[in-house]
């Protein structure tokens, strides 16, 4: 197909969200606020990592069509520099405290589920199948993260403040989720990609409903980082990604060509 390079780029956008957020959640393993929660959060990380790998597998097939043989999942995950990563700025933000982690998760999960819902209707059968499978997992992620927003927002004075601070700080990264650049516009027109802009209103209503129950205030929509076509999806990241990748890629890059 003529638009394979664009489609490849779009697959990286989907894959990198999973890989990068799973990497962040991996930092929590063994350090969660309760044993049960530690185990549950790791399941979310494992799901996202699995989804990332499914998107990368398809990315490779697409890349192989115009630049054979195409890079494998590990070459894509461990040998790309920060500027080649296509994840949203939101998912690369540091874990912070548990409210920061849960707010990041909730804002993403709510969008992620809607996006996958739209992608399940993609004209590209592979995309539709992966999205349908991932949506089942993400529905549960959203249940959990929405639940935690409510528990923290409606918990103690301290947890309420931390939840509100987390939402306020992360809000600036939410606009990027609904931005549509030339690459996505073309794929949307072809019926392959989801129209992210159309998700904004339903996302806002869903988030508002949870915040209402959590007695959290909806932040005002000011300037949004990365929403103007110069953000994570275009490879322009926050400083956090570079540090994350330095850690993630160190072993793989120290032994070029090695198999593990």
């Amino acid at each position: 197909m003529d638009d394979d390079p664009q489609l490849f780029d779009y697959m990286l956008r989907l894959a990198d969200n999973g890989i990068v957020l799973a990497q962040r959640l991996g930092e929590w393993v063994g350090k969660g606020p309760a044993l049960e929660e530690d185990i549950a959060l790791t399941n979310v990380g494992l799901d996202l990592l699995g989804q990332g790998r499914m998107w990368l597998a398809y990315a490779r097939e697409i890349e192989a069509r115009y630049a054979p043989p195409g890079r494998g999942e590990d070459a894509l995950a461990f040998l790309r520099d920060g500027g080649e990563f296509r994840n949203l700025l939101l998912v690369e933000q540091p874990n912070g405290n548990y409210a920061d982690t849960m707010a990041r998760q909730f804002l993403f999960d709510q969008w992620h589920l809607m996006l996958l819902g739209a992608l399940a209707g993609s004209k590209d059968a592979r995309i539709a199948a992966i999205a349908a499978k991932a949506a089942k997992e993400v529905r549960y992620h959203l249940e959990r993260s929405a639940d935690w927003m409510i528990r923290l927002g409606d918990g103690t004075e301290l947890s309420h403040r931390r939840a509100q601070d987390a939402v306020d700080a992360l809000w600036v990264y939410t606009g990027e989720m609904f931005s549509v650049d030339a690459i996505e516009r073309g794929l949307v027109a072809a019926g392959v990609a989801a129209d992210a802009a159309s998700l904004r209103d339903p996302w806002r209503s869903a988030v508002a409903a949870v915040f209402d129950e959590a007695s959290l205030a909806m932040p005002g929509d000011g300037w949004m980082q990365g929403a103007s076509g110069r953000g994570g999806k275009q490879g322009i990241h926050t400083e956090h990604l570079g540090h994350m990748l330095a850690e993630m890629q160190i072993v793989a890059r120290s032994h070029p060509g090695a198999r593990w």
Partner: protein
Amino acid sequence: MSSEWPLWEIFIRSQHGLAHKHVGSLHAVDAQMAIRNARDVYTRRNEGISIWVARSADIHASSPGDKDALFEPSNDKVYRHPTFFPMPDEVKHI
């Protein structure tokens, strides 16, 4: 303030099983969290399709089966809680 989460007993019905079986316990603040935690803790390997949870404090148990008078029946409350892990079919040496 004590922030210890209450203990819950978890019962899971597997794909092949006819009835819910006790699989273990965990801590959670309410039933909804107990069900979610049970999914993550006790069905990591697709062990079940239906989950029941009950507060350990609400479980009443019969007296020990032993007829020997030395093992006097105590009250009907579980002492803290019972952990009736089912014997998996794969484990042959029990």
